[in-house]
């Protein structure tokens, strides 16, 4: 079996970028609000369906559609924080209650989408020409995904390091009590993080759906990877997530190579994420870059 290693690297790069967009939001909200939001997967799905609605149903311009989809996802994330999670937290809901509520929210979003758009497979009906860069094959869509992820990462870096809001986010993620005592408006920081996280998730949904097809389980299918990345990188750490996205993506693609070589189904690629997840929890639960103090 001849393996085009450069192609494997390319695939890892592409998937790493897409995973990054999904996982950043999850990691940041998890670190800030101190619970894993299982509905995050549905922000991904929602973004994709919104893009579909604007582009394929309403016939709007592609870029406009994507922009609106991203904004709608942000809105969804913001609403879920303001209407559900913030009030629950202020009522002292336990971690388990928050998790259960987030699962419920996710199911609500997913099945509402299924009701409106039908539960079947939808397609953006786009044909992407294959571009060959040397021995590597890719499409304009995937290149755009890479470019988007790089731009987003750079912007986030600038935001976190250079702006007041960014410093506030980092401070709150690191030590919420101290941040609150220092006069940082926790509410604004949280709301911004939730809006941003959901927006990026929605953005990734667009890429994921355009790459293959649009199904209701679009987001759920990548949730395991998102969690593995979040845990590996360190909950709440943008830089950790950045590194972990590519580490996982590379591992997964190498895993697919191994699976094919062993004659096993490529469906098992999710098992790689599972192994990464479990290994992280066993070896170093704080992840690569631990910003959040472990609750004793």
């Amino acid at each position, binding site marked *: 079996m001849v393996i085009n290693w450069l192609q494997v690297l390319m695939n890892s790069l592409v998937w790493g970028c897409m995973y990054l967009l999904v996982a950043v939001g999850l990691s940041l909200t998890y670190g800030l609000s101190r619970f894993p939001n299982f509905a995050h997967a549905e922000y991904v799905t929602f973004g994709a369906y919104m893009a579909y609605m604007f582009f394929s149903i309403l016939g709007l311009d592609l870029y406009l559609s994507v922009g609106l989809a991203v904004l709608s996802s942000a809105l969804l994330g913001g609403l879920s924080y303001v209407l559900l999670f913030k009030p629950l937290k202020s009522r002292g809901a336990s971690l388990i209650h928050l998790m259960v509520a987030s699962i*419920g929210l996710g199911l609500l979003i997913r099945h509402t989408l299924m009701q409106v758009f039908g539960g079947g497979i939808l397609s953006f009906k786009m044909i992407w020409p294959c571009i060959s860069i040397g021995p590597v094959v890719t499409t304009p869509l995937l290149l755009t995904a890479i470019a988007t992820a790089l731009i987003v990462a750079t912007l986030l870096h600038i935001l976190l390091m250079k702006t007041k809001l960014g410093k506030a986010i980092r401070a709150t993620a690191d030590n919420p009590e101290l941040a609150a005592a220092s006069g940082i408006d926790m509410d604004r920081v949280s709301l911004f993080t939730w809006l941003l996280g959901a927006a990026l998730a929605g953005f990734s949904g667009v890429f994921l759906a355009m790459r293959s097809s649009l199904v209701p389980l679009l987001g759920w299918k990548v949730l395991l990877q998102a969690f593995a990345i979040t845990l590996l990188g360190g909950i709440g750490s943008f830089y950790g997530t950045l590194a972990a996205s590519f580490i996982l993506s590379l591992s997964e693609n190498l895993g697919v190579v191994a699976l094919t070589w062993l004659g096993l189904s490529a469906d098992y690629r999710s098992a790689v994420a599972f192994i990464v997840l479990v290994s992280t929890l066993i070896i170093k639960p704080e992840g690569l870059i631990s910003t959040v103090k472990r609750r004793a």
Partner: protein
Amino acid sequence: MPDPLMYALDAVAYAGIFGMLSLSLNLEYGYTNLANFGKVAFFMVGAYVAAVMARMKYPFAVYALVAALVAGFIGLLTSLPALRLREDFLAITMIALGEVMKLIVKNEEWLAGGVWGLSGIPPAVVVQGLSFRERLLVQIALIYGCLVACYVVCELIAKSPYGRVLKTIREDELLAAAYGKNVFRYKACTFALGSAVSGLAGALFAQYMGTVSPYMFEPTVTFSVWMMVILGGPANNTGAVLGAFLVEGFHRSSRLLKDYIGLPLDPINLQVMLTALLVITVVFYRPQGLLKERITPLDRGLLKKLKPMYRRVKTWVRS
């Protein structure tokens, strides 16, 4: 137009099976604060083991026991690494585990029929010459017999010193350890037992449905069981069973609601959406559930009732 009585009896049967799942989760979460978000995985294991063995014509008593033991054993294995994790990590891991197990089942056709599952599972009790309705009643009798047995077991545990330790672990692990309880052992034991009960429920489910397939074991099942425990009231076994009845009733009504609303809604979507809203409402307004935990001293009630019964059974057995 399905016979409404059949529909109701079907709901009753489901409620009985889910009642057992609810009791098992109540033991794990309500008494020991273990966030078992992988309940459906053990349910599935029990169902598949039972399916395979039932098709090989083993009697119910045998395959139900094996299903419970296998599920319990896998629960024990899972607990060894998993229980050291804090709640949210445990939840994530368990959900992921369920998905990976489904993945294996879907892909390994030789093992469990792949995406098509296994069919032709004979019912546990076959009595000749019964009508469909009567066979359904026999099923319900079997299911509820097992449910009652599970209920008794869970109550005995809750009212025993073992249950006292579980509650202590739930509230304050450090205290439990400081007073000599090997916290990890208790958690693992409870998790294994809960998984075994789930496996038994799975076995009953398999022979009731007649077929099993991976699509019957989505994470929504785990979610529904959590709803049952939260709604009924954690750490209250009666509440767990009550929660099962209420949630199953809610599922069924919301599916029927479609006929009365007149909107072109898919019944399953409607069911999930309303269930999700229900859970969110409960978590919001009454997170402690309907029935409260009983803080009674240990040997009142059940023990006093059981002691003479135990003696009577013993003398009956001896005669």
